[in-house]
């Protein structure tokens, strides 16, 4: 035994035995020191030894299925504990809507909490992506736009026409999660969303409120569900300092599998000189590659040989370095946590970086014995440099580099511009296909964001059962943007620039009066009434100019033509609500909520709406006491939430003036027809489920069924331009989602040194667009499209949301393919090919711990979605696709029939078309060939952790209390996919309008890295 110095607060050893309710030793029980990550497990006989820092330490004894116990050490050296079986083990408290804490075992609806450790070992620059595959019901589609890009998040299907991200609530305060723009068919960059600003190190947990009942109290924005983010706070346990360091490297994955038989060229010949090489830079319609030298567009000689690694060579291995230091502590009256973090992320695109600095402060002060005040301030300073352009080709390096001709070495494109004139070196027959190296060296697209999310909460506890809580939350975002079309750009030689600043604010003020007491023997009442005021405001100014006089001087004063813009948008919601829950012996629970909202975005006659909910749960295991079952609950709920207009100012026709033209103001008006009769819409949801635990809680099953429907949804429906508008605001959309979520958790193995935990979740959602315009006139609501424009995404009445629409072949009555007089298959109907949103998805997570080692891996999967691929389209047009090898030298005679002039008879097609014309015509006419099944199974994440032995830190000269090292990998393997030449998850936008469209986004990346966590001694 080591020397003991209890008086000096030095380390000393405690030993003891943990026994079960019968007095038998419990193997594998966990003993941890409260407020630290230090801990140990009992041996096969239930014995343990642990070193504690001082007398003030508290030991926490836990074992699945048993009541957790906390024991203050004091001066004792031997602590024996008998654990009590039972419900207590599950008596987990979860934070629900409005910050009201509830016992999970009596909840009448489905809620999932995710611990922070899932978020901050293997990092994602957008923290929400770490939840992918982990939560039943949650479908996350990360954008392919580089570090910090936005994600499409759907809870329980596409809950409305706009797709709908859940509402994020940070420590009780709703935060803005607006996407700062994504790419569309005409290009653009993904400038990130609100949640991507949050530093994962500051997050203690994330709780997903899935059903409408769970989220009903948040009102309009909660129709898409709510994700509660709880940040770490100080504990009453002295000062502790912690460091987290993470270094990760992103490396591109080349999914292309093109043909490398025929080289650069057109019409079956290789380029004869620099001019024709420039015209064929993206065309692989040349001759069989023979390794002979040929003249490239730069006039230099290159081998006419396959170049397969342009993608790997062009993109860089991109490091991301994150450092976080936090200090937390407290005493009886005050506790605090302060953290500072810096993320320095590089994109695989060479000029792209995202630097984010965050400061997070959380202070709780006990002002009097009855009044607690909590202050939260989260400051974010983010600088984004050169967010890459995607989708369309202008200034998009991804486009050119992916589609370079099969014999074209990307090095020839360097440096992208003529050093003397500054003019872009174009490499194709299209000025709008920007030289990728010109983009790297000349393009600028910068954003900066300064954001403060702050909240102050005061809670006055009149008695132990009555409290009054007031809260004010303020989220203020200042955004700046600067982008240029560089001097010398081929399609705009004199260049242009744009500068914009905007301020987005959201203010929430709410109050809650709550009562929580037993009103009779075994009957508890938990009730609260409250109100909320929400104000959103957005103000923006922008100035743009074109035609620089002085090369490379990117200032507005240097432009010849200028224009400016100003935007303003304000909305307000006032709400009142109640929640009431009756609980009988923690066995039977009945709850109801109601919320009345008044929306400023709607006309005065239709502004207010009441939305109620009821839920019930019954813990049947308490009555039946089945043998192997530790816990069993059934639950059911019905809820409504209401929704407002998707934007302000939709109820009146306005007229506005644009720039003057020859001194005259140019008047116009929006192409969206207003609607003066808008009213709030409703979503109704029924949810039922059960939750059980077996075998000392080592096996758990949670199943939920839900059926939700919106009615009178406010949508923007398309109109023919011939009507005088191109869209109109309608109050008639209806979307339905019905589905099942299953979460299976288990601990297959648990011994003293080794634990294996596994969880598997699966979600099935049947989504239907029930109605678009109420009258059935609009059967197809066209959304976005991909750059080739011969297909699109649309909501189709009676089908799942976000259908991929593509042109089929055309067939005659006998089912034979009709070929045009040009020898190319004729375009048939534009048909829905399936939804872009998966209907079956989930993940399998396994974690193993052995002594100080831990190992976990996550496999996730999505099924049932389709993707419309521009990469595939271009690979046909450009002669890169392996399918274009057929008939290369002989021409193609399509197998089908040619109709006679009057259409009544047909003859077999005999027309021979040269391959280049055939495949271009084919893929342009029949976009169905670019629709793929997007099913995948991926090895998403592997983490190997090692906690340094605690004895290393027992020496007082070592400043650390504990050190943990992890090696992490993300997106390691694709276990299954059906897409050629691209990642089934690829997409250039997180917007629902572009769901399932792909093309010229950044390549997917594989990530490797290391995380170091060190806790300093107190």
């Amino acid at each position, binding site marked *: 035994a080591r020397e003991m110095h209890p008086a000096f607060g030095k380390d000393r050893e405690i030993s003891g035995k943990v026994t079960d309710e019968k007095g038998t030793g419990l193997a594998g029980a966990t003993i941890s020191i409260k407020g630290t990550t230090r801990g140990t497990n009992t041996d096969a006989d239930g014995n343990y030894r642990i070193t504690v820092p001082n007398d003030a330490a508290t030991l926490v004894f836990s074992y699945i299925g048993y009541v957790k116990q906390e024991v203050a050490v004091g001066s004792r050296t031997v602590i024996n504990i008998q654990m009590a079986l039972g419900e207590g083990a599950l008596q987990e408290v979860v934070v629900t809507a409005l910050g009201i804490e509830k016992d999970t075992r009596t909840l009448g609806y489905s809620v999932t909490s995710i611990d922070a450790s899932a978020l901050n070992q293997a990092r994602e620059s957008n923290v929400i992506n770490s939840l992918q595959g982990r939560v039943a019901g949650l479908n996350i589609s990360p954008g392919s736009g580089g570090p910090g890009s936005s994600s499409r998040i759907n809870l329980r299907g596409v809950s409305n026409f706009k797709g709908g991200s859940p509402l994020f609530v940070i420590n009780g305060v709703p935060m803005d999660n607006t996407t700062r723009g994504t790419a569309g068919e005409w290009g653009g960059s993904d400038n990130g969303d609100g949640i991507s600003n949050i530093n994962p190190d500051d997050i203690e947990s994330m709780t997903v409120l899935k059903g409408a009942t769970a989220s009903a109290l948040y009102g309009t924005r909660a129709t898409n569900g709510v994700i509660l983010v709880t940040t770490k706070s100080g504990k009453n346990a002295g000062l502790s300092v912690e460091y987290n360091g993470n270094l990760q490297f992103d490396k591109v994955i080349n999914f292309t599998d093109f043909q490398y038989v025929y080289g650069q060229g057109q019409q079956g010949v290789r380029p004869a000189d620099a001019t024709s090489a420039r015209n064929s830079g993206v065309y692989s319609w040349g001759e069989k590659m023979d390794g002979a030298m040929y003249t490239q567009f730069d006039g230099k000689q290159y081998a006419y040989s396959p170049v397969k690694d342009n993608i790997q060579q062009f993109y860089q291995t991109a490091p991301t370095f994150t450092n976080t230091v936090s200090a937390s502590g407290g005493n009886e009256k005050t506790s605090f946590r302060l953290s500072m973090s810096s993320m320095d992320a590089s994109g695989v695109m060479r000029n792209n970086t995202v630097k984010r600095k965050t400061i997070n402060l959380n202070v709780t002060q006990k002002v009097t014995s009855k009044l607690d005040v909590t202050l939260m301030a989260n400051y974010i300073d983010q600088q984004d440099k050169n967010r890459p352009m995607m989708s369309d080709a202008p200034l998009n390096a991804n486009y050119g580099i992916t589609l370079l001709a099969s014999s074209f070495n990307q090095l020839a494109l360097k440096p992208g511009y003529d050093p003397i004139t500054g003019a872009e070196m174009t490499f194709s027959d299209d000025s709008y296909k920007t030289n990728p190296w010109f983009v790297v060296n000349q393009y600028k697209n910068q954003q900066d964001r300064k954001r403060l999310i702050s909240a102050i909460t005061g809670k006055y506890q009149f008695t132990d059962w009555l409290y009054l809580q007031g809260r004010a939350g303020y989220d203020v975002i200042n955004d700046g943007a600067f982008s240029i079309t560089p001097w010398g750009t081929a399609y705009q030689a004199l260049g242009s620039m744009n500068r914009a600043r905007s301020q987005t604010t959201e203010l929430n003020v709410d109050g809650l009066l709550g009562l929580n007491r037993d009103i009779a023997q075994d009957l508890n009442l938990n009730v609260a009434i409250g109100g909320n005021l929400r104000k959103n405001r957005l103000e923006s100014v922008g100035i743009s100019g074109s035609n620089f006089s002085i090369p490379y001087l990117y200032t507005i004063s240097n432009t010849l033509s200028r224009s400016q813009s100003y935007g303003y948008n304000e909305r307000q919601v006032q709400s009142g609500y109640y929640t009431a829950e009756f609980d009988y012996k923690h066995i039977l629970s009945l709850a109801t909520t109601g919320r009345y909202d008044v929306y400023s975005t709607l006309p005065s006659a239709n502004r207010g709406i009441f939305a109620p909910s009821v839920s019930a749960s019954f813990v049947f295991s308490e009555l039946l006491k089945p043998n192997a079952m530790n816990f069993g609950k059934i639950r059911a709920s019905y809820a409504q939430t209401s929704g407002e207009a998707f934007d302000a100012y939709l109820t009146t026709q306005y007229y506005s003036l644009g720039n003057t033209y020859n001194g005259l103001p140019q008047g116009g008006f929006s192409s969206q027809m207003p609607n003066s009769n808008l009213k709030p819409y409703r979503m109704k949801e029924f949810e039922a489920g059960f939750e059980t635990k077996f075998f000392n809680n080592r096996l758990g099953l949670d199943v939920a069924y839900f059926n939700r429907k919106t009615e009178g949804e406010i949508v923007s429906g398309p109109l023919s331009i011939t009507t005088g508008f191109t869209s109109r605001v309608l109050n008639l959309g209806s979307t339905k989602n019905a589905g099942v979520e299953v979460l299976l958790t288990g601990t297959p193995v648990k011994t003293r040194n080794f634990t294996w935990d596994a969880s598997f979740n699966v979600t099935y959602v049947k989504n239907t667009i029930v109605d678009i315009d109420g009258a059935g006139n609009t059967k197809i609501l066209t959304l976005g499209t991909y750059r080739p*424009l011969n297909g699109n995404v649309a909501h189709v009445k009676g089908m799942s949301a976000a259908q991929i629409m593509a042109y089929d072949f055309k067939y005659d009555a006998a089912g034979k393919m009709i070929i045009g007089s040009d020898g190319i298959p004729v375009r048939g109907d534009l048909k829905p090919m399936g939804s872009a949103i998966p209907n079956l998805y989930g993940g399998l997570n396994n974690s193993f711990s052995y002594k100080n080692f831990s190992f976990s891996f996550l496999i996730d999967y999505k099924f049932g979605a389709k993707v419309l691929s521009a990469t595939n389209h271009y690979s046909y047009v450009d002669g890169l696709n392996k399918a274009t090898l057929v008939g290369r030298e002989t021409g193609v005679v399509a197998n089908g029939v040619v109709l006679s002039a009057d259409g009544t008879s047909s003859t077999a097609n005999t027309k021979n078309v040269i391959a280049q014309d055939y495949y271009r015509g084919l893929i342009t006419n029949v976009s169905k060939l670019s629709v793929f099944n997007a099913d995948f199974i991926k090895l998403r994440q592997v983490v190997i952790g090692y906690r340094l032995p605690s004895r290393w830190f027992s020496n007082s000269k070592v400043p650390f209390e504990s050190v943990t090292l992890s090696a992490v990998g993300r997106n390691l393997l694709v276990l299954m996919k059906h897409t050629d030449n691209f990642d089934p998850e690829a997409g250039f936008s997180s917007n629902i309008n572009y769901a399932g469209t792909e093309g010229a986004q950044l390549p997917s990346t594989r990530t490797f890295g290391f995380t170091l966590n060190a806790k300093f001694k107190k």
Partner: protein
Amino acid sequence: CTDKFDEINTDPNQATEQQWDPNFFLPNAQNNYVNLGYDQMLYQGPMLQVLASTFTYYGNGDKYVNTQNSTSYQGAIFNRTYSTGTTLAEMIRLSKDKPQYANLYQIGRILQAMNVLRGTDTYGDIPYTQAFQAKAGTTAPKYDTQQSIYTALLKEIDEATAALDVNQAAPTGDMIYSRLSSSTAKMTAWKKFGYSLMLRTAMRLIKVDAATAKTYAEKAIAGGVFTSNDDNAYIQADANYAASGIYNVYQVTDDYRELRFAKTFIDALKSTSDPRLSAVAEVPQTGAANNANKTLSGDNTAASQLGLPNGYDLASGATDIRKSAGYPGPSPAANDKDSDAPLGKYSRPRISVYLKKNGTMMVLSYAEVEFLLAEAKVRGWNVSGTAADHYKNGIVAAMTSLIQLDASAEIKAEAAQTWAAAHPLDVTSTDASLKAINTQFWLATGTMFNFIEAWSNWRRTGYPVLTPINYPGNVTGSTIPRRMIYLSTEISTNPTSYTEAVNRLSGGDLLTSRVWWDK
């Protein structure tokens, strides 16, 4: 506490109907109508063999092949017809029955007629009577037959022109005649504009309804059409925004490098020593760098001019221009750092005339009117003067109006008179006269970059006689397109009406189908 919600939900950045002056719509509509850029440069310009290009995008009109964006370009005029039309319809609605906007209202009707005319000429049947009525609940407008549209438009032009009041104030938002000094002068010009437009509209019908054509042509003449270049209707683009669509086309490196005047066009000017050749065309200075220089003028001497034949590319294959019979060789590198310019010896539109931020965009010209009058006379209708005189006036007007594009394109009246006198109208036969008149119409609208009007006139008369290109993979069976394909979004947003219209088209919604008046 929700008292302020109405105020909060009122956009502080925009105006309501009560605050609005419908004159504000006019500059927007006029510019949108006339500032076409690519909307006529990719199809009509090269199709009519005024322009030619080896560049892929121009393959649409140069070679009748589909490129990546053909669908958009085919639907562009449809889009423009209805976006311009939407603005005009609202202007008409807000100025109707308001005395202070009486002339604005009538001008709105005339411009709308002109706008719809271009739309129907491009596509055939299009929505007209039910168009622009979403607010009244019509969300699936029927496509009217072109015949009924023409009947309605002629009546509309007639009524609106007659109702123009030269004694009332001219609209404040007008850009077309803003150069004229007095309100009376402006309104007088508008009146002539209305009748000139009526003449243009009437003459379209010669193949299908010569009687109506004659009736309205004579009515227009009686009402008073343009009488000089001073009446020309055009807009100059706003230099502050480099608003000219043509200017912006030329900002694209490849367009500037590879878009040239067509051999057919240059040959037509050159064969008659037409003074317009030096006014509109130039050969760039030697070498690739000079060819790419957008501020360096070229050599405009007539003898140096050479048109680029349509139907060629730079792809090293059989259709590579460098393998064509008449290829003059590349323009040699200017120095050892420079390289050859393969197209450098072909004539391009003069940059001083066409590459202007404030370029002139012609809406309707006196020269066109004179050629239409010449034709009407040839057809024996009631027109004062001789066909030969009108023909001559048209030529002189076409030549002397080039100064309205740029001072450097000036052709002196004497030179124009002299040339016209030396090249009188061929009166040996009606056909010979029509051929001469409409070939001159093509040269006039071609030099003005008014390609859509040149195209409609070619379809109407068959002149000039153009030899179609036969390029591999073309989608028209090697014929020059005779209409454009409807805007693709109509298939999904207005399917029933669209399908009805397509079913009335013999051959379907194709480039090769013909509109009603183009039998």
